[in-house]
């Protein structure tokens, strides 16, 4: 028999409540095991001393006080019973505390508040800005306005919308969309208004010309075809164009007019040259990502110079159609929408 078992049986051994067999085993174990033997001696002494423990008696007025408490229950306890034990449903103070805390949290943070602030934060221009973005995305079109000083090749790069909502500009700068959001929306709205104004000929007295490119000089065509994938193709083409356009420039200089030389897109640059030479300006250029060419150019120039513009333009472009055929009488500065076909 192990000591652990013997120690459990020792009390019963002293009370004579063990079977004869167990009693003999415990007695035999205690003879050989000093630890269990000491335990047995301790228990014997302990039992004797406990027997002489004095009995404590209840106070003499115990019953009288008890009757008072029974007849007149404590106000506090009654209150607690009324508050927390109605209909015998046990509602501990902890649960009440949790409920109170939850209520306070709801009052402070108010998660169920209707989200009116979202509607308030929407600016009247936001819808216009979204429409503008959708329009640009769906058409695959990048717009460049005059006065941005953006070189044509760089201007070909489309704006990239990042995952975080920011927009990467062609120069690679990342602008957070939410920074200065209001001014951005206003700009978008202004653009939209300008676009509407530009696109309505009746208001501006504009004329629409449908153009097709004339056959390019032989050298330009060759260089374009052979070096289509070359990064330097634009520069080479520009040099070739410069050679081709040289006689026209000389002619303009002879008339005392200033000849402008722009970027790398010869066929378009010549339109710019003509426009600037005739006291005009470029209002907007629309670049088509699919055809990799400008689809629409809007210019503005004095009405008196329109005939000269058409004559000069006809040297490098084929004018297929003009709408309306008759020039409007007003205003003095007119707009010409150049629709460039393949």
């Amino acid at each position: 028999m192990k000591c652990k078992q013997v120690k459990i049986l020792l009390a019963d051994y002293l009370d004579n409540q063990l079977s004869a067999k167990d009693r003999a085993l415990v007695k035999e174990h205690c003879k050989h095991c000093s630890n269990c033997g000491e335990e047995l001696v301790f228990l014997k002494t302990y039992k004797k001393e406990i027997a002489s423990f004095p009995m404590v008696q209840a106070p003499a007025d115990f019953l009288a006080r008890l009757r008072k408490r029974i007849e007149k229950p404590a106000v506090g306890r009654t209150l607690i019973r009324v508050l927390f034990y109605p209909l015998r449903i046990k509602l501990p103070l902890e649960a009440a505390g949790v409920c109170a805390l939850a209520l306070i949290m709801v009052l402070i943070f108010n998660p169920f508040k209707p989200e009116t602030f979202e509607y308030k934060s929407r600016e009247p221009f936001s819808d216009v800005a979204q429409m503008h973005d959708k329009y640009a995305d769906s058409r695959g079109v990048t717009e460049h306005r005059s006065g941005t000083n953006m070189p044509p090749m760089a201007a070909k790069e489309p704006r990239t919308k990042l995952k975080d909502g920011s927009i990467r500009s062609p120069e690679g700068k990342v602008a957070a969309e939410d920074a200065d959001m209001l001014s951005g929306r206003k700009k978008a709205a202004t653009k939209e208004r300008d676009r509407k104004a530009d696109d309505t000929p009746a208001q501006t007295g504009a004329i629409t010309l449908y153009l097709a490119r004339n056959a390019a000089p032989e050298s330009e065509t060759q260089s374009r075809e052979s070096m289509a994938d070359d990064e330097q193709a634009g520069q080479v083409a520009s040099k070739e164009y410069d050679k081709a356009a040289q006689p026209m420039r000389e002619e303009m200089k002879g008339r005392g007019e200033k000849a402008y030389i722009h970027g790398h897109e010869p066929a378009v640059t010549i339109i710019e040259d003509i426009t600037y030479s005739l006291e005009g300006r470029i209002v907007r250029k629309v670049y088509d990502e699919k055809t990799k060419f400008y689809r629409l150019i809007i210019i503005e120039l004095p009405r008196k110079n329109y005939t000269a513009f058409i004559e000069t333009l006809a040297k490098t472009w084929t004018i297929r159609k003009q709408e309306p055929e008759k020039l409007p009488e007003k205003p003095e500065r007119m707009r010409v929408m150049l629709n460039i076909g393949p």
Partner: protein
Amino acid sequence: MHKEVNNISQSQQEDYQLIKNFLADDMHAFDRLVTKYKDIVFNLCFRILGDFDDADDCSQETFIKVYNNLKKFRFQSSFLTWLYRIAVNTCRNRMSSLYNRMNKTFIRIGISPDFGGDPPDIRDSSYDPGALFEKNEQIKNIHAAIELLPENLKILVILRDFEGKSYDDISTITGINLGTIKSRLARARQRLRENLRGDR
């Protein structure tokens, strides 16, 4: 032995009759029950709690519970065992109450050896339980050693060694099974022995 069983049975029958009388709106029957068992209950509460005032309050509370719940008594077990069960649970609640824990902590700080000298008597000195053990130093040591036991072991030791309850009764009173009671009692005595050695 046979005479003792007869006495117990007679006492039990008397209890049953008093309870029936009480349930028939006889308030004197309840008074007789209280008078009969008040010392036993008070003594049990005093041994468990170790404080006269707490024992007084707890034993009063025990009888109030009896008064309120006597109509639920099913006459299937001994009234005394039922009374013990209520008293032990009341004492357990008192020991686990915040007030009691704070009080105990305060007293333990007071008797810390760092302070030196005798612990200050911060309890009501109208009834000094320490005076009970003045005659016998060994009894005083045993009482101190029992006070150091954890609550679950202390209740078992008191019920078994002081009140002389059987393992079955202890099981009924505490709701602990027999095997656990025996092993816990062995562990409690081992601890008592260690505590007493430390005193010596």
